[in-house]
């Protein structure tokens, strides 16, 4: 009874492995099912390499297009269309409905930017130029008015504030012995 339990425990410990994601991050390959030829590699140059890379990423050969080789470090990762998940069909039965993505589908390099809580590239309701004109037109108009208002101020005339006790003569550091001159604030 105890022997059976011990064997089952040993079996469970042996077969359990951590999720593949953490394994590729740490570099430990012992239990991972991904080998060197299934992981991204350097930039592809020959057509055979392209075909192999397209098959690796589960893409058709005419869809596969790597990022330009300008030293950014993308390697042979495909440059998928820069469309956000907002644009995908909401009624199709995706494997992961919140991400609108199927299992095994190649992920965009900026996938975490294109999820539904972030950047949205879907077509706008109004034409872009009209929106631009409205926004900058309004802001420019308000800016001009504020600048004019700042430079050409207009308000009812006011005098400087009048304080009691001879204009706070003592509080402002005047000599208590001396008698200050009387200030007249009115004319009759």
């Amino acid at each position, binding site marked *: 009874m105890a022997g059976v339990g011990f064997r089952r425990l040993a079996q469970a410990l042996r077969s359990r492995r951590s999720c593949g994601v953490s394994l*590729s991050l740490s570099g430990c390959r012992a239990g991972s099912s991904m080998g060197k030829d299934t992981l991204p590699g350097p930039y592809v140059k020959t057509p055979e390499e392209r075909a192999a890379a397209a098959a690796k990423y589960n893409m058709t050969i005419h869809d596969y297009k790597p990022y330009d080789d300008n030293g*950014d*470090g993308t390697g042979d990762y495909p440059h998928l269309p820069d469309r956000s998940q907002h644009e995908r069909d909401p009624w199709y039965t995706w494997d992961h409905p919140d991400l609108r993505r199927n299992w095994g*589908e*190649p992920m965009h390099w900026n996938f975490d930017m294109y999820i539904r809580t972030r950047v949205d590239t879907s077509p706008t309701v109004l*034409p872009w130029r009209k929106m631009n004109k409205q926004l900058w037109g309004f802001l420019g108009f308000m800016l001009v008015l504020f600048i004019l208002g700042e430079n050409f101020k207009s308000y009812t005339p006011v005098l400087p504030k009048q304080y009691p006790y001879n204009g706070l003569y003592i509080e402002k550091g005047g000599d208590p012995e001396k008698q200050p001159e009387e200030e007249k604030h009115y004319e009759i």
Partner: protein
Amino acid sequence: MADWKKASLSTQPITLDPNEYFNTSPEFRRQQKDRLAMQANLKRQYQLQLNNPHRTQLIEDPALNRWVYARNHTLEHFRPTLRTSLLGILYGVVPLCAIFYALKRDRWLRSGSQHW
């Protein structure tokens, strides 16, 4: 949306794409067929794993692993070019110097020195 015009940040609605209606070339259709076949195969693999009553663990997604690996191993394929060097300076050196100067200037002003 009949007066929709192409713009850099707003994509074309799929209903206004002429390819959707007029592209009947066999090449285009063959490409669509290949794409759909591949997607159907992946769907099948996922469904087999999902509905397998003997499965006890998470379904590992190789596409996710490749994405994470690619994003974390950019240094292997990095090459210092003019563009990458300028970007490095723009993102690394300029903010550092700007913040350093801003804080120092604030201190000089507070202490009353004429250095700034």
